[in-house]
């Protein structure tokens, strides 16, 4: 029986989809059979991050409505043979699927996969309800900003009231230089407020944008600090003990130093 994990945040734009794609790829790289379900119905994105947008013929609502078989709707990843995507429809809305249907959909996958990762839409309305209904574990993504942590706290409260077995935090887009200058919330401040276990800390990383440009998760790029953090997170999900990535500040190049000098002068 596979594990069903929902990736959620409350607030939009904090990196849920990126986190889903990278952790899924990480688990598949570690030999697990993984399916990623995009529950952001009407605003699908996961296919883009994985570079699979041109491979999608059927979506999860068509599976639910019996218009295609599950096998037809599962899109195999370009790089990893044991990673699959079940896409969201782009032209429907959040009511196109009911919680009962979602439950049934996941039940039909749970015997064939080691991990089912669900990419949750932003917000805490019906789309969120549908995305969490079948899961018993959650990864809450937050960035070190007051509004993001506040929304994460709200979501953790909702997940707790649904009796989730495990709720863990991924703190995304951490800027070590800003933390050092005390211009950003640090891990300790966030965890003391949220009081949930930390699954990982992901540094802010330009590679994420570049990876999105070409449709390959950053985890496939060994030079990406965020990719490395996601690989560690995948290991931790498999209970492999990896020390929290010490986020190392990148030293500026000579050109950047020069630019900074001029910037300060102004």
């Amino acid at each position, binding site marked *: 029986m596979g594990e069903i994990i929902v990736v959620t945040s409350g607030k939009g734009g904090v990196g849920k989809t990126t986190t889903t794609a990278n952790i899924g790829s990480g688990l598949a790289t570690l030999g697990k059979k993984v399916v990623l379900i995009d529950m952001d119905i009407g605003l699908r994105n996961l296919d883009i991050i994985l570079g699979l947008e041109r491979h999608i013929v059927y979506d999860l609502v068509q599976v639910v409505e019996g218009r295609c078989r599950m096998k037809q709707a599962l899109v195999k990843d370009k790089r990893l043979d044991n990673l699959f995507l079940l896409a969201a429809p782009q032209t429907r809305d959040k009511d196109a699927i009911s919680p009962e249907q979602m439950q049934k959909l996941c039940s039909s996958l749970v015997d064939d996969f080691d991990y089912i990762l669900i990419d949750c839409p932003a917000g805490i309305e019906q789309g969120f309800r549908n995305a969490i209904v079948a899961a018993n574990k959650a990864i809450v993504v937050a960035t070190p900003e007051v509004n993001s942590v506040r929304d994460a*706290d709200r979501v953790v*409260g909702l997940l707790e009231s649904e009796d989730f077995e495990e709720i863990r935090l991924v703190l995304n887009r951490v800027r070590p230089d800003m933390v050092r200058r005390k211009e950003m919330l640090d891990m300790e401040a966030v965890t003391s407020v949220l009081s949930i276990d930390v699954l990982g800390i992901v540094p802010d990383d330009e590679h994420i944008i570049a990876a999105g440009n070409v449709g390959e998760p950053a985890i496939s790029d060994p030079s990406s600090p965020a990719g490395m953090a996601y690989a560690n997170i995948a290991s931790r999900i498999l209970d492999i003990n990896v020390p929290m990535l010490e986020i190392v500040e990148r030293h500026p190049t000579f050109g950047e130093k020069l630019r900074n000098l001029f910037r*300060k002068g102004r």
Partner: protein
Amino acid sequence: MFVSKKTPFTGSGDVAKNRLTTIIFQDRMERSPEILEMMKSEIISVMANYMDFDENQIELDLWLPGGKTVGELPSLTASIPIRAWKKRH
């Protein structure tokens, strides 16, 4: 030119920490206002072991810091007029 200047955002991480603590406190209280009542009844039951007081005169006050204050945390003050000690310790 080389001296880094103090900007309005210097140390803003600490401001963020304070605001976050207050906001989360406020949110949780709003979501479950019964917590305050539950705390009150638990405080009463503990204090009742040691002293006599009128339950109706107990006041719990919640104070939330505002603005860009650093170091000020949400606080709870209880005012409990005591009639007498119950036992000698």
